[in-house]
């Protein structure tokens, strides 16, 4: 794991089932994450993924790549375009920093509408 290493591209199909089941599993009951009619009334084109899920996906993207032995120390994310039901969320990543056992990975999650999430994940690799 060296600076410049790219993570393999990863695609998440944000089906309605995915949007809703993750919202509920993160105990987020806001209607825009499970009720399409209400989401549309509020000006969205469909239900969309909640922030806690985005955080979870970013963590998963990095640990899927780095392996289960690493420890996740920090997840900093900036949110952009919503990820709506039926969107494909594509993740890209790259190692941008390393200090001894501390690794910083830059992550971008993108849909056809633009960047849904950009951020960094700091992990600690085993000695």
């Amino acid at each position: 794991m060296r600076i410049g290493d790219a993570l393999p591209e990863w695609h998440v199909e944000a089906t309605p089932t995915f949007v809703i089941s993750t919202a509920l599993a993160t105990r987020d009951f806001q209607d825009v994450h499970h009720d399409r009619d209400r989401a549309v009334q509020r000006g969205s084109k469909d239900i969309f993924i909640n922030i806690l899920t985005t955080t979870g996906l970013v963590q998963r993207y990095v640990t899927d790549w780095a392996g289960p032995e690493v420890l996740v120390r920090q997840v900093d994310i900036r949110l952009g375009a919503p990820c709506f039901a039926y969107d494909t969320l594509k993740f890209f990543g790259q190692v941008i920093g390393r200090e001894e056992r501390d690794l910083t990975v830059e992550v971008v999650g993108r849909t056809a509408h633009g960047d849904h999430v950009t951020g960094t994940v700091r992990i600690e690799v085993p000695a």
Partner: protein
Amino acid sequence: MNAAIVGIGATDFSKDSGRSELRLAAEAVRAALEDAGLAPSDVDGLVSFTMDTNAEIAVARELGIPGLTFFSRVHYGGGAACATVQQAAMAVETGMAEVVVCYRAFNERSGHRFGQVQAAAAANIDNSWSYPVGLGTPAAMVAMFARRYMHEYGATSEDFGRVAVVDRKHAATNPRAWFHDRPITLADHQASRWIAEPLRLLDCCQESDGGVALVVTSAGRARDLPNEPALVEAAAQGSAADQFTMTSYYRDDLTGLPEMGVVARGLWRRSGIGPSDVDVAVLYDHFTPFVLVQLEELGFCGRGEAKDFVASGALELTGSLPLNPHGGQLGEAYLHGMNGIAEAVRQVRGTAVNQVADVEHVLVTAGTGVPTSGLVLGRG
């Protein structure tokens, strides 16, 4: 005919290519030439779709093709697919060109999506009877035919769904397919949301980014090239009486695709084979109902019998008429039918991932609901 497809090339198929349509076209053409064992300097003809945004001269510039003696476009959206090869073959046979590349490249998912309502299309006088009344997407236009077909023949949504299940089953074992490793069940199909009743989401093909190119030359020259040539045993175009683009709703009967009947008769007559001689069928599958109608128009079964033909398992890889072994446009990618021609070539060569045994003749069709085209490719 005395022409053959000697090279196939494609970009990755994605939902967001991240590059220009011209770059996709250039990449696909270069890949096809490499596959053919030819250089850009060998090319003297280019053919594409009227809808393609990449001018022949722009593609030629990117590839460094020194000159073109033949360039041509075919109308009517996906109906153009097989006709590009027909144009190329005619150019080769008449001596207008020696090596012709057919190409189609677009950012059809990340850019201009055909599945959305194309308000600008209403500027066409023919479309003024459909778009302004709210009939503005290909899915809705096909749904009007599908509803009548169900009414006349007792077909059901499940009968349409079986086509999607077969395509997705084949895509599941094709690593290039968008839906690789993601088969669906009939229950998944039935649970998918309505797009335009009676069409569900899983009756509709994908929207895709990508490019495909095919290299056509004479059968004689093909013998000196590295790949087993896929000979153009027959090519045909077809339109029929009272033809519209997607909305031929004013004919006496709405349960057929008579333009595909014109293509079928041309293909059988010119190739000298018939439906029972076809080893693999690559049928245009932007929407499942028209796969059933095509089976009837092409003579694989009688009128109204396609639902039973499909339910019999005939379309499986081991069935009597293996359908879309690459997964079709429902499973692999929507490249306006051109990826299906590439699959037909692989089936003839014997190099497909889901290879059917002992392939002699492959039938390919182009877009349905529009004036269309077809090919029979084979080992000659």
